[in-house]
């Protein structure tokens, strides 16, 4: 299948008549959501449904000496009070390790804590009642006797000999360590004309999905089946885990995911309270609902990005980068999160640092340690914002040190666009990237020279504006190399089943899921184009393990690239099946026919031969009129998994233009640009909006978001009034551009686009602030979030 230009913007379309590929088709589910008629799990009510609330440890580390539930049990509406040991009879614990992360270790984690709570917020007792309010009333009456234990909160000292070991059976607090060395690092630093060192500190933050985590579990004792309605990104993964830990067969478990109020990686993990809800349903033989309230979300939704990276770059006078070196330390809470582990983020940092550049000399150390804080795990753009900020922070510091323009520095060092395929210094493999084309496009879009002139002019008036840049790479379309090889039952392949219904409409069932990014629109576009039907006659079904092909779901920017390709192949297959029926009716040859715009036509002339509803009518209701021995097959299923490359890397570059108020330390974002290459663009509007939303999430990390813990492991700002998120008033308009380098691993050629914005935005904002403050002789800011306090400190004003 050849790729042809479809739009003047050089977005590609696959060469089919009436193709929807490369067009901004509106999403099919918007009207429902805009009318308040979505079906979020938090909206769901079932007959006899009970509500669970959890008593949570107020201490970061404490022995649970006694739980006296007598008063709670007498509270009106209470159905059951269940402790950890009681629930452990129904559900087994889990350990978050993967075999391909060598040496990673963790301790068994229970649905409800047994004997000991290891972070502030860990559930220690469940109360099930007729309403959530009544369950909370009863929790107030629980008498829980805690013995506070010493806490491990500082990652820097977590490995010291005198520090308490949180899980004594593991021997130490080291979860995972990775060392990597490539090229001749010491020699390269010696040969450098300048070496720049900096310590980058990233604030722990979290996803703050607008709809908190929500689950309704219903164990039907008569059917011996569990139905779980869950806001999740990976229904089949959860089906496997619910079955495994409740000692059921997978076919006894159905996971249903309709509308999800935001995910961003938060909803792709195993949460103890959700596992407990499922187990409680089994125990009580009735539907049980759990919806985290916002305060619970802050202390139980996974956190991310709490890294300290000591980093070093060597550079020659002409701007050539000679070496990168990093020492990354991250504290991930008391357990490695199941089943994806909490080692992946640091592992990604090692993989991605230096990624856009030719430099072959690279040394990395990453250590992941346990501590008594909420758990950390994979959140949108896992590891990318850290690696990009470290790499691009170093590149701009080095450029400033040797007095070279930061874009010239990149032109000199970025992997040349004709240099592919190739491998990065960390061992990652690139099929085809376009760093230089992206950079030149960005320069043109933003009017670089003019902005530099404006910046210089305004400095004379004591207005301090800065420009910051970041070239980046993004992991998308993961193969089995991500999780499958490590032993996790997380599908890398995905499937699509297409059916021609009895009126000639196309029904698509897919294993990938809709989290609001537009998966269902993309699947409809792809299926309609491959099959040859108007998109209005396509209906997409996702998020139901009983009714969709087995698949991985939505994470690591895989839905369009993997789920889309499966739908493309299934569309082609169903077209052939339908043409076989049509040919049989018309006494023609399938290859002489095609399906275009919902009609079977002569392939050569485009002349209409028969409608799809007529083909369906004959196949379903008058098969007796078809030739003997001919069986119509109006369903086709195809699967796809990337095989040629472990990941389809994408690339891009961002820029930020901002103004720093040097009296208050406030940063005003003026403009933001991103040029991104995600291969074939199936729906330009959806891609652009993914990037815009991702950028703003990255800006949150750069300027506002921070889970602030004290030394006792208490989260000090776990609510939406104190934890700042980006709101409309402070956000800039963002200009998005594209370069298109399709992957040859699939016919569609689409790579992922979901995380590019978040990957690059923190780096560019940090770099732009430093650029703004440079003439003032301020200290370099390498800390996120760059709050007004951080800025004023850098200026020496506080």
């Amino acid at each position, binding site marked *: 299948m050849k790729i042809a230009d479809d739009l003047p913007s050089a977005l590609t379309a696959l060469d089919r008549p009436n193709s929807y590929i490369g067009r*901004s088709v*509106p*999403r099919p*589910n*918007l*009207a429902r*959501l*805009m*009318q*308040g*008629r*979505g079906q*979020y799990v*938090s*909206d769901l*009510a079932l007959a006899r449904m009970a509500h669970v609330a959890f008593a949570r440890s107020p201490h970061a580390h404490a022995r649970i000496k006694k739980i006296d539930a007598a008063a709670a049990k007498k509270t009106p509406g209470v159905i059951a009070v269940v402790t950890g040991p009681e629930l452990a009879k129904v559900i087994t614990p889990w350990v978050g390790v993967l075999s391909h992360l060598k040496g990673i270790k963790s301790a068994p984690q229970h649905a409800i804590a047994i004997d000991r709570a290891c972070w502030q917020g860990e559930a220690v007792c469940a109360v099930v009642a007729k309403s959530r*309010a009544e369950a909370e009333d009863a929790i107030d009456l629980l008498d829980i006797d805690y013995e506070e234990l010493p806490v491990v909160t500082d990652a820097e000292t977590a490995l010291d000999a005198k520090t308490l070991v949180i899980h004594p059976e593991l021997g130490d607090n080291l979860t995972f360590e990775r060392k990597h060395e490539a090229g001749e690092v010491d020699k390269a630093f010696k040969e450098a004309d300048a070496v720049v060192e900096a310590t980058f500190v990233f604030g722990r933050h979290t*996803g*703050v*999905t*607008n*709809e*908190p985590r929500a689950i309704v579990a219903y164990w039907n004792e008569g059917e011996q089946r569990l139905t779980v309605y869950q806001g999740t990104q990976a229904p089949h993964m959860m089906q496997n885990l619910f079955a495994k830990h409740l000692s059921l067969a997978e076919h006894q478990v159905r996971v249903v995911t309709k*509308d*999800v*109020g*935001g*995910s*961003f990686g938060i909803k792709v993990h195993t949460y103890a309270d959700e596992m407990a809800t499922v187990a409680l349903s089994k125990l009580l033989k009735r539907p049980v609902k759990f*919806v985290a*309230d*916002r305060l619970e979300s802050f202390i139980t939704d996974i956190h991310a990005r709490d890294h300290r990276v000591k980093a070093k770059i060597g550079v020659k006078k002409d701007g050539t980068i000679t070496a990168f070196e990093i020492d990354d330390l991250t504290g991930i809470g008391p357990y490695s999160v199941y089943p994806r582990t909490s080692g992946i983020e640091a592992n990604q940092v090692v993989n991605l640092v230096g990624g856009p550049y030719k430099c072959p000399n690279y040394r990395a150390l990453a250590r992941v340690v346990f501590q008594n804080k909420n758990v950390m795990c994979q959140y949108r753009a896992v590891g990318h914002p850290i690696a990009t900020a470290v790499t691009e922070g170093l590149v701009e510091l080095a450029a400033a040190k040797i007095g070279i323009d930061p874009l010239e520095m990149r032109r000199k060092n970025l992997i040349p666009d004709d240099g592919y395929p190739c491998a990065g210094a960390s061992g990652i493999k690139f099929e085809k990237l376009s760093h230089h084309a992206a950079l030149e496009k960005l320069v043109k879009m933003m009017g670089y020279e003019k902005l530099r002139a404006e910046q210089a002019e305004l400095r004379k008036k004591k207005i301090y504006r800065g420009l910051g840049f970041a070239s980046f790479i993004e992991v998308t379309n993961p193969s089995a190399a991500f999780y499958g090889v490590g032993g996790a039952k997380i599908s890398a392949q995905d499937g699509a089943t297409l059916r021609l219904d009895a009126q000639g409409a196309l029904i698509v069932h897919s294993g990938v899921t809709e*989290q*609001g*990014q*537009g998966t269902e629109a993309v699947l409809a576009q792809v299926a309609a184009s491959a099959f040859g039907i108007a998109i209005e006659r396509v209906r997409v079904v996702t998020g139901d393990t009983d009714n969709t092909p087995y698949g991985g779901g939505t994470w690591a920017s895989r839905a369009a690239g993997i789920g889309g390709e499966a739908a493309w192949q299934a569309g082609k297959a169903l077209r052939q099946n339908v043409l076989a029926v049509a040919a049989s009716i018309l006494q023609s040859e399938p290859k002489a026919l095609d399906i275009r715009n919902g009609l079977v036509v002569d392939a050569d002339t485009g002349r209409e031969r028969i409608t799809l509803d007529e083909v369906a009518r004959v196949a379903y209701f008058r098969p007796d009129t078809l030739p003997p021995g001919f069986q119509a097959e109006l369903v086709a299923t195809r699967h796809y998994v990337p095989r040629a490359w472990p990941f389809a890397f994408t690339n891009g570059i961002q820029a930020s233009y901002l103004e720093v108020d040097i009296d208050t330390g406030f940063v005003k974002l003026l403009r933001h640009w991103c040029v991104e290459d995600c291969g074939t663009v199936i729906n330009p*509007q*959806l891609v652009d*909006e993914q990037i*815009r*939303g*991702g*950028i*703003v*999430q990255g800006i949150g990390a750069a300027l506002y978001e921070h889970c602030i813990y004290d030394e006792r492991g208490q989260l000090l700002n776990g*609510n*939406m*009034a104190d934890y700042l*998120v*980006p*709101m*409309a*008033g*402070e*956000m800039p*308009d*963002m200009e998005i551009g594209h370069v298109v380098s399709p992957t040859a691993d699939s016919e569609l050629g689409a790579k992922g686009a979901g995380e590019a*914005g978040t990957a690059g935005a923190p780096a560019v904002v940090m770099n732009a602030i430093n650029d703004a403050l440079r003439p003032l002789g301020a200290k370099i800011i390498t800390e996120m979030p760059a709050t007004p306090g951080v800025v004023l400190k850098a200026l020496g004003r506080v």
Partner: protein
Amino acid sequence: MSAHDISLTVNGEAVREAVEPRRTLVDFLREDLGLTGSHVGCEHGVCGACTVRVDGAVVRGCLVLAVQCDGARVETIEGVSDSGAIADLQNAFEKRNALQCGYCTPGMLLAAEELLAAGGTPGREKIREHISGNYCRCTGYEAIVDAIEAVVQARGGRK
């Protein structure tokens, strides 16, 4: 906890219910009336997902108690959608893909309509300021601002 009888109109329909004094308006709408279009995001008045109208004024459904609405006229996204009052705004949101997960959208639409209904031709900055009490994690806000701006232009300042 003793219940109080309240009478009010919700989306033009007369409603009489017994509610606990602690019941918030948004929980009342969602759990007692099944109007789940108003969402619960933070339950402390920051995120705006629970935005509804009481006697024509936009309020946070999580900061108003149901008992306070005795005798009031309450409108939710379901009612405003069915009346067609914000059809142009909804069309603009669809055209611009100004929603992703859609969880903030009912509140965002009602907040935007409050600005539009005030008349005049607010610019982007004013639009951003007006919706800055409504949290959206998905879009980055630009598409929402674009959509509202398009309706500002189309309505031409009419109230």
